[in-house]
């Protein structure tokens, strides 16, 4: 099968790169091993929340020079501050163009989002209906009193914990809950009384007025906070509620599955298909060939996959956006870390397995920074040789710790755009 581009990986980086390339007129197939880690994401996107030494970042733009000193292999450092900024602004523009409406901006600096455990955490972009507040160390509340309204018996959201945290931060809170007759049938199966299933019920046209009526009872406040279990299939639901109720309504991500994350994934998937992209779900590369394995540089000629058997994919360009360990882009055996598809060159990592992890689970884990080595154009290498038609993007890359530094989404978006540019420059 012939495609201009094959993207391996269906997460934020993979879809971003694929959609950008389709928009430039290239034919594109996207292969994924299963649904992506977006389904566990907060629905907000971080750019850079902390430096490798733990120092908190308020304005990512101002921190890029220092980041380069501390982490020269970080993808932002490889690209340089100017390009990183340009790509960040481009990502903001594209997301909104694609209909993923986000608040926040790279130039203004980080704002604060609310975690499912009620902690205010810095972030770059939040979906418009997600709870966020301006501020860096301290939130700059526009509200005095908020109402937290949950769905009765919904266990993946803890209004009491969130309320206590918000009280400590100077907000008055009130907790209430509601249920609808249609939800009763979901309760027959308590273990699956989860955000996405609830959203499917609440989003129904006939239930929207009932939700509105329930929320009206809690409007003696400046804003309403709801768990993210509505607005999946009808994304403007929250803004419609705000309008009807006359006060801001915001949703907070719940424990997994994350409706706000799944919503981004579904949206990107539809944008991909709408541009004629060919989806290859649940497939994995089993073998590949180079055009001339002994040449100075390598060029991928064919990729064989589990589903396509003896019929190879013959891409002109390949984007590797397979993610990190959890998404199976990287693999650790007893003595070695491997990039799972092409065994690409990785950034240096310790020989001793004991040094890959820290015993304290909450300490920064060294393995989180392992990954594929690239140049500033996201080009990859195998045994020291450049692989001319293979670019990598997202969490499969090394040189950064997305947990400690809060930069996973930013790296995914920015490197995906650079990888796409890199492909287009060669066209």
């Amino acid at each position, binding site marked *: 099968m012939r495609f201009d581009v094959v993207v391996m990986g269906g997460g934020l980086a993979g879809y971003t790169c694929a959609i950008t390339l389709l928009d430039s007129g290239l034919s594109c197939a996207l292969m994924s091993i*299963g649904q992506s880690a977006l389904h566990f994401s907060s629905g907000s996107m971080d750019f850079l929340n902390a430096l490798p030494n733990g120092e908190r970042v308020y304005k990512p733009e101002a921190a890029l020079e220092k980041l380069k000193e501390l982490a020269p292999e970080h993808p932002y450092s490889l690209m340089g501050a100017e390009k990183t900024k340009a790509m960040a602004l481009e990502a903001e523009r594209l997301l909104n163009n694609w209909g993923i409406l986000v608040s926040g901006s790279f130039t203004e600096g980080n704002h604060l989002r609310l975690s499912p455990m009620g902690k205010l955490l810095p972030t770059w972009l939040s979906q418009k209906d997600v709870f966020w507040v301006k501020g860096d160390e301290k939130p700059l509340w526009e509200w005095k009193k908020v109402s937290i309204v949950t769905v009765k018996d919904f266990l993946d959201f803890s209004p009491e914990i969130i309320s206590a945290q918000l009280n400590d931060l100077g907000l008055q809170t009130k907790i209430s809950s509601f249920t609808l007759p249609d939800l009763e049938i979901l309760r027959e199966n308590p*273990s699956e009384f989860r955000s996405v*299933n609830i959203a*499917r019920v609440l989003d129904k046209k006939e239930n929207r007025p009932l939700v509105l009526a329930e929320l009206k009872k809690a409007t003696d406040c400046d804003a309403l906070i709801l768990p993210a279990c509505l607005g999946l299939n009808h994304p403007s639901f929250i803004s419609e509620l705000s309008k009807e109720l006359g006060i801001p309504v915001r949703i907070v991500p719940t424990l997994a599955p994350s409706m706000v994350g799944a919503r981004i994934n579904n949206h990107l998937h539809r944008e991909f298909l709408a541009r004629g992209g060919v989806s*290859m779900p649940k497939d994995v590369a089993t073998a590949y060939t180079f055009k001339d394995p002994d040449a100075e540089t390598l060029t991928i000629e064919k990729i064989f996959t589990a*589903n396509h058997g*003896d019929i190879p994919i013959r891409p002109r360009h390949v984007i590797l956006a397979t993610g990190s360990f959890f998404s199976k882009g990287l693999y650790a055996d007893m003595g070695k870390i491997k990039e799972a598809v092409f065994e690409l060159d990785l950034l240096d990592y310790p020989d001793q397995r004991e040094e890959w992890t820290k015993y304290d689970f909450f300490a920064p884990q060294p393995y989180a920074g392992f990954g594929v080595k690239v140049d500033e154009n996201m080009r990859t290498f195998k045994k020291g040789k450049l692989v001319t038609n293979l670019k990598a993007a997202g969490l499969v890359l090394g040189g950064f710790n997305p947990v400690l530094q809060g930069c996973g989404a930013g790296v995914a978006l920015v490197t995906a755009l650079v990888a796409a540019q890199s492909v287009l420059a060669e066209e």
Partner: protein
Amino acid sequence: MNPLLSTNFDACTKCTICTEYCPVSQVRPAFAGPKQSGPDGERQRLKDAAFYSEALKYCTNCKRCEVACPSNVHIGDEIALARKKFAPYNLSPRDAILSHTDFMGSMATMAAPIVNFMANLAPTKFFLDKFLGIPSWRSFPRYANKTFRAWFSDNAPDQSVYKDTVTLFHGCFVNYNNPSLGKDALKLLNALGVGVRLLAGERCCGVPLIASGFFQDALDNATTNKASIEKALENTERIVIPSSTCTMTLRDEYPEVLQIDNSSWRDRIDLLPRYFYRLLEEGRELKFKPMEKVVAYHTACHMEKLGWTAYSIDLLRLIPGIKLILLPSLCCGIAGTYGFKKENSPTAQKIGEPLFDLIKGSGCSLVVSECETCKMQIEMCTGLPCENPVTILADALI
């Protein structure tokens, strides 16, 4: 074969993504969802068979859970295997009628005009609804006056003039209901310079039998088919199939659910568009006349599982003037015989609603799908024709 090894159930990380993509649990909460029914339930069933839940029969075997799973757990297989092991024998005459397609098809085609006429009479529908539990509002597939096999042996153009030959596994729908799809396949294969043979003995692939819990009958069919296929492969390179579900069953359900070893020929089973693709890659040609139509491509559940939509999409794009819309991959709800069962039909309709809305809103005048029951469901629920890509390609052939 050890099912514990083959279903990979201990790889489940409890992430719940499977349940998120389960068409049934979205609309029918009595079904506990794939995670609970599959890997979670398996853990319990291993301890005590009493944990087996009858609600597992609400699974449509669509396999969307397996496609969604990031940890490669064979969730759908696990549910099917649990049903095979624990479900009581199905005594429902209705289920026997719906799932034994060969028996029903051979009887009905003998008197097709009468059967088609009778099937749509109000008293028949009333009887089927009240006494058998087949909803009266549902339209039935019409039976053909002559089976595809009979047409092939009596009327097909001479296939021995072609140097290359391939074996066609036509499937029940082509044989009893829609022989014209089989003729379309023949037309395209002949145009590509390939002659067609049929299997000496072809039985229903078995998927409706698996769905209704007639596992022994499914196994009997699979054993017969395996023998026929192995015999046919002595003389032809490949077996080609028009239907995505038959293809998926022969490739994946035989080893994973029925424990039939197909390892020596699994890779020689092709969906027709995939086989056409091979021939075109060899340099053979198909010439199409323009077709100024907006056509919406629907990914049937088992196409999603096969992962082979690219071949059909690639081929359809060869037709000049065609505007192909790729619909998001959603289940139409029918799931073979599932939607024909009265107790399931509200679920089937609810599952399909988002897809029907997308189709109606797409501005297309024709839907394309490799699945015959998706065709029935989409035609009934959207009023638009739905054809196999093979038919569309054959129509456009110069």
